[in-house]
Structure formats: structure tokens, C-alpha cells
């Protein structure tokens, strides 16, 4: 090699989102183009993990300028090489354009989506090659593990984590340092550490992205935790549906072993640590810690009552500490920068940042990391770029099947563990589904309950039978068969299941129902009493569409698309919809060029 440094680095996102939109192909074409122009030795291609903006993938960032190209197609690559790499001209048409100002933005730090984010856990994600331990080390990696093992006692490490205020990012928000302390103090020599990468919540992909984009950070967090609690062996429990995460993690573990960062006598100390991967079949209940441990032991993934807690009796009966992927991802930063730096971000009782997976009716769906205490308004409108469809914001569902809704009344509430709990929502693992007026809240509740009901392991009666009964009632309501007293029955059943279910799955399963009844009771009532679905979602209940005579120009487009021939009329005269035939599919309203059709 006649030259070891490059004048430019081209970072191509190869997270799951971008790969599915074709980034691997883009990379191949780029390699060919660079070779053709004799630039291969000047320009380095780096594959990275997710940048968060998956919606706009495939994504490419060109350094040193930090130019952000998105939604690339294979044909675009030659132009980038000829214009940008050869002549230094940024290709404007491939830059990101702000949806509102329509301004094109060259440097990605200036895009609204990134401006309000604070990247601590994801700082390396999309910036380094996740398959290169050298790049991780170059950006300060394994320094924290070295520091903890050689310069701190386990008690000091635990104290630092306690002082940082870090709380578990897997959902419950239990103080991490305290949990480590319990396991450290538990009796026994053999101890385990487990990373929970099951990520069963529908709509969530935070943990997958971190494992794909920066696997070494998770490994380093686990090494530090293992040292702190006195464990010499650990497991990462990942669901088998995450093949890319598993491959990169496997590679990362091998690289760390090769450099002696895993294995015996780390950093010349007498601390040794081995790490294994355990693939899970992908059952939601296997994310529950006792079920997860049963699954690692080779048994069926079913929860058992607590206590005894894993800290005392965990994997194979030994003291075990289990944390979420993102929780471990925060640990190297805390050790490197100190508890104070960490707790200076966020709110008093919820320090640091939280990674959310933003989905639903929003312009910029993707992965975002924000300081705790940020408001929902900032997330939805500044980072998320507002709602698609131009419809009005209705609510955000957080915490997946264990969570609830945040309504527009709480748009300015600072988001942290406690504030969300207070309003009956929940931080959960970080799924955020944005909903607009066109969303039926009874339908949403039904969706999540349907999920938990079918994921219930069936061990305890309240969860097995109770959720089934609730689901039956919801199905009835959505089909127009709702009865007086159904709401009360749902509330009663819900409270009862919460109190008596064996594990967290059942204990939280009623939450989406309870929360939507709390904030959108009128929608339940409309379904039950008026036999109407105000959002027009529940088939058979939704109000028929009507045509406004004044506005209609008589083009006849609507009649052509109606699947049930409910629309009639003569060209140039106002058309009509027969409300008895209309199935409320809305196909006509979408086609009408003058917006003359709406739901009556």
C-alpha cells in the first residue's frame, strides 16, 4: 500500500433498514465507479450501522465535509463520483430536503431530525464500522473497561453507576447501580451477567440497531458490569430474527477475544470474562427475565414467580444480573466521562438520554436519541417533522403492549419514567407510535391486546383467560355488537388481571385498554351506543362517505374506484353515494380532485 490515509471517507449505512432499501448494491456500484476513476486509494468506503434516518435510506455520508446523501439509487452513484469526488461539487439533488422549508441541507448535523438529538449511546452508530474493533478503539473504545478493571474497585464502579442515576432502559426503569449492588452482595462465587436483546415489542428496533451499529459498546458495558458484580461468564440473549445483529455481535466477540479483551486476565488483572450468544426463538414472553433464563437453560421460556430475584437465584440457580442492551450501551460513557457528566443530561430522576423508535403517521420515522425531559411536541414536530397526511395529531402510544397513550393535552409534558407513569403511559423500551385523527383508539387497544393475548405463555389463569375475555369484548365492540356495561367490564377485568397475573406480560397487558378508555372513552361510547367508529376505521361501523354537492365538479372519478358501486351520477353534475351500500373504505375520497368527499 503506497498510502495509508485517505482524503475522504464515504460512510454507507448497512443497518437493516438501509440494506433492505438497497445500500449493499449502492456499495458495489460505488466500488466499481471508484476503481474506474482510479480513486480507490484516495477514498475509503466504510459500512456503518443505522443513522436513525432509515426512512430516507439508503444513506451515505461523505467526510471530511459531512455531506449527507439520501434515498440513493444505483444510477446516482456515478454522478456522486464524477461531481463530488472528482470535482468537489456537492450533488444538490441528492441532499436531504426539509419537508417544510424544502431547503436542501448538505451537512447532516444541520438537519432538524438530528439537531435536537443528543447522541450518547448511539454516538458511534453510523459513524464507525461496526465490524472493525480498530475503529471502535480509535474512538476511545475499551478505555472504560481498562480504566474500571485496572484503576477502580468493583465497589467504585457500582458507586459511579449509582451516582449517574442510570435506570434500566428495558422498560421498568429500575436503578442499574442498585441492581448491580444486589448481585455483587449475593452469596456465591459463580455469577452470571445477561444482556437482554430479545426486543419483542411490536414497532421497536432500538436494541437491534445498537447491536448492529456498535456491538463493541454493548460488549464493553457487559465487561464492566461483570467486573462490578463479580461474574466471569455472560450471555447475550438475541432473537433469531435479528441475523445481522447476531453476525456483527459474533464478529465483535471474536475480535475482542483475539485482542485479549475477552477471556482470561483482562488488562493483566486476575479478572476473566467469557461471553456467549444465545439465540432466542422470538417469543415476547422470553424477554421477561425469569422466562429468558429458563430459555437459556434449555427449558421452555416460561416465567416463574419472584422472589427469589435473579440477583440471588438466577441462571442455573446462581446470582445473575440482567440488563437491557441500551442500559449496557450507556455504561462505557459513565465510566469514561464520570457520573456527573452523565447525570447533567436529562431530568432529576431520569438522567441521560433515551433512544426511541419513532413510527406511525409521522414524516421522519426512524431511530432517535434524545435527552430525557424533552417534550413530546419536540419529538413529534421538530425531530419527527410533523404528521404525514397533514391530519391532526391525536396521540402517541408508548411502551408497546405494556404501555399507554400520551394525548395532545400532554404534548408539552417533559418525558421521563415518572411523568409517563403518572399519566398511565409508560417509557417501556422505547417504541413510539404516532397516531393522527384517522386512528381509531379502540382498534389500537385491540391490536396490542391481540398481540399480548397470543403471546401469553398460558401459565397463569388471569393472563390466559382474562386477556382472552377482554379481547372478545373489544372484538364485539368493533363489530358493532357492543353492549351497555362493556366499558365497565373491561375496566374491572383489566384491574383484576393487573393485580393477579404472574409476570409482567399479564400485569401490563390491560394497559393499552385502560389508557385508551381513560383518554378516549367517548370513542368507546360512540362504538357501543351510536354504533359509529368516529375515525372510520372499524369496518361495518364507520360512517358512510358523502359528497358535497357544492364542491363536486362531476368528474366521475369516485364512481370508477368504488369497489361496491355505491356511487352514481351523471358527468358534470353532482355525484351521490348510497350510504346503505358504502363500506367506508375511503377509496373515493382519496381520488376526488376537489376534496368533495368526506365522512358523514
Amino acid at each position: 500500500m503506497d498510502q495509508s490515509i485517505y482524503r475522504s471517507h464515504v460512510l454507507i449505512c448497512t443497518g437493516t433498514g438501509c440494506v433492505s432499501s438497497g445500500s449493499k448494491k449502492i456499495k458495489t456500484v460505488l466500488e466499481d465507479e471508484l476503481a474506474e476513476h482510479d480513486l480507490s486509494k484516495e477514498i475509503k468506503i466504510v459500512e456503518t450501522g443505522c443513522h436513525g434516518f432509515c426512512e430516507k435510506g439508503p444513506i451515505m455520508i461523505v467526510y471530511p465535509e459531512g455531506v449527507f446523501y439520501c434515498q440513493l439509487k444505483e444510477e446516482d452513484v456515478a454522478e456522486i463520483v464524477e461531481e463530488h469526488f472528482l470535482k468537489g461539487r456537492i450533488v444538490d439533488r441528492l441532499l436531504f430536503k426539509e419537508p417544510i422549508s424544502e431547503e436542501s441541507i448538505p451537512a447532516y448535523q444541520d438537519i432538524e431530525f438530528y439537531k435536537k438529538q443528543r447522541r450518547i449511546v448511539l454516538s458511534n452508530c453510523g459513524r464507525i464500522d461496526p465490524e472493525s474493533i480498530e475503529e471502535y478503539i480509535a474512538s476511545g473504545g475499551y478505555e472504560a473497561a481498562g480504566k474500571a478493571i485496572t484503576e477502580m474497585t468493583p465497589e467504585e464502579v457500582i458507586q459511579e453507576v449509582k451516582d449517574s442515576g442510570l435506570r434500566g432502559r428495558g422498560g421498568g426503569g429500575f436503578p442499574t447501580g442498585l441492581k448491580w449492588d444486589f448481585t455483587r452482595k449475593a452469596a456465591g462465587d459463580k455469577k452470571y451477567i445477561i444482556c437482554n436483546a430479545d426486543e419483542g415489542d411490536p414497532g421497536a428496533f432500538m436494541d437491534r440497531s445498537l447491536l448492529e451499529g456498535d456491538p463493541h459498546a454493548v460488549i464493553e458495558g457487559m465487561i464492566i458490569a461483570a467486573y462490578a458484580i463479580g461474574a466471569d461468564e455472560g450471555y447475550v440473549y438475541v432473537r433469531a430474527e435479528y441475523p445481522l445483529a447476531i453476525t456483527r455481535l459474533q464478529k465483535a466477540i471474536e475480535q475482542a477475544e483475539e485482542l485479549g479483551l475477552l477471556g482470561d486476565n483482562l488488562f493483566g488483572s486476575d479478572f476473566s470474562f467469557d461471553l456467549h450468544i444465545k439465540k432466542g426463538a422470538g417469543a415476547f414472553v422470553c424477554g421477561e427475565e425469569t422466562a429468558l433464563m429458563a430459555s437459556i437453560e434449555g427449558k421452555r421460556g416460561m416465567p416463574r414467580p419472584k422472589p427469589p430475584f435473579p440477583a440471588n437465584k438466577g441462571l442455573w440457580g446462581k446470582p445473575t444480573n440482567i440488563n437491557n442492551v441500551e442500559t449496557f450501551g450507556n455504561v462505557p460513557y459513565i465510566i469514561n466521562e464520570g457520573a456527573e457528566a452523565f447525570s447533567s443530561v436529562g431530568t432529576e430522576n431520569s438522567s441521560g438520554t433515551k433512544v426511541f423508535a419513532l413510527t406511525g403517521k409521522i414524516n421522519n420515522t426512524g431511530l432517535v436519541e434524545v435527552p430525557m425531559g424533552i417534550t413530546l411536541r419536540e419529538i413529534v414536530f421538530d425531530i419527527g417533522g410533523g404528521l404525514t397526511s397533514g391530519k391532526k395529531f391525536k396521540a402517541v402510544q408508548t411502551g408497546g403492549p405494556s404501555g399507554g397513550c400520551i394525548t395532545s393535552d400532554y404534548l408539552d409534558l417533559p418525558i421521563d419514567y415518572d411523568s409517563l407513569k403518572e399519566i398511565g403511559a409508560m417509557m417501556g423500551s422505547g417504541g413510539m407510535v404516532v397516531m393522527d385523527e384517522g386512528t381509531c383508539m379502540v382498534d389500537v387497544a385491540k391490536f396490542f391486546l391481540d398481540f399480548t393475548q397470543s403471546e401469553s405463555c398460558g401459565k397463569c389463569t388471569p393472563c390466559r383467560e382474562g386477556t382472552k375475555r377482554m379481547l372478545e369484548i373489544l372484538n364485539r365492540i368493533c363489530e358493532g355488537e357492543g353492549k351497555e356495561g362493556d366499558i365497565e367490564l373491561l375496566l374491572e377485568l383489566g384491574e383484576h388481571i393487573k393485580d393477579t397475573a404472574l409476570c409482567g406480560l399479564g400485569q401490563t397487558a390491560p394497559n393499552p385498554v385502560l389508557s385508551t378508555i381513560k383518554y378516549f372513552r367517548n370513542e368507546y361510547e360512540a362504538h357501543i351506543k351510536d354504533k359509529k367508529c368516529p375515525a372510520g376505521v372499524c369496518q361495518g361501523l364507520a360512517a358512510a362517505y358523502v359528497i358535497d354537492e357544492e364542491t363536486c365538479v362531476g368528474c366521475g372519478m369516485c364512481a370508477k374506484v368504488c369497489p361496491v358501486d355505491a356511487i352514481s351520477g351523471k358527468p358534470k353534475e353532482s355525484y351521490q353515494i348510497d350510504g346503505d351500500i358504502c363500506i367506508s373504505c375511503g377509496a373515493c375520497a382519496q381520488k376526488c380532485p376537489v376534496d368533495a368527499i368526506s365522512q358523514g
Partner: protein
Amino acid sequence: MKSLEELRELRSKVQKDLEMRSNSERPKIIIGMGTCGIAAGARKILKAVMKEIDKRGLDVIVTQTGCIGMCEKEPLLDVKMPGKDRVTYGNLTPADVKMIIVEHVINGNVVEDLAIARFDEGGN
């Protein structure tokens, strides 16, 4: 890994490559690569720049720019030190590049013989 020092040694070895992806202010060398620039040999200049930077282990951003309207003075190269004016050099040979890098980028003295223009960019 036998010790923390060993990790740090490895880190300093691999670090330089990554600095390109940080936002800190660094000296910048900008090469005129319009059509006529390339015809006048700008790619040779670019290669000479890269070679010098690599040889001396400098932390410098190298970028290109298009036509700046001084085709007759090609090949062109600009040096922009943090907080200083941007200086344009013209009619360059690879040997000039060496001189500019040592004198201007490392020692901070503008090579007046070769400079053909200066822009006040408000310290940017």
C-alpha cells in the same frame, strides 16, 4: 490486552484515520478540480498533497472545489488555516506542494512567491 497502556498505544496508532469524521477545526487544503483544473494537472497536485500529508502524519482536511474562474493559473490550491485567511496558490508543480505544506501548513507562513490571492473568510 496486557495493560491499559497497550490499549492506548493501539488507539493512537489507529486514531488518525478516524479524525476525518470529527467536526473539529483543522487546516484545510482545497484543490481546484474544475474541468480545466483536471486538464492542467490538478490530480497530480492532489496526489502530491496526499503523499506529503501521509508522510508527515498531518491532520488536514483535503477537499476539492470546482471552477473558480482563474483557469489560466491552474492548477490551483487553497490553504485555509483555522482562524486565518484563505490563501490561493497557482501555477503549481508537485514540488511547490511540498514547499507549501512545510511552510504554510506546518510553519504557518504564507509562501508569498506562489500566492495569487487571499480571501478574508471571517476566520472560517
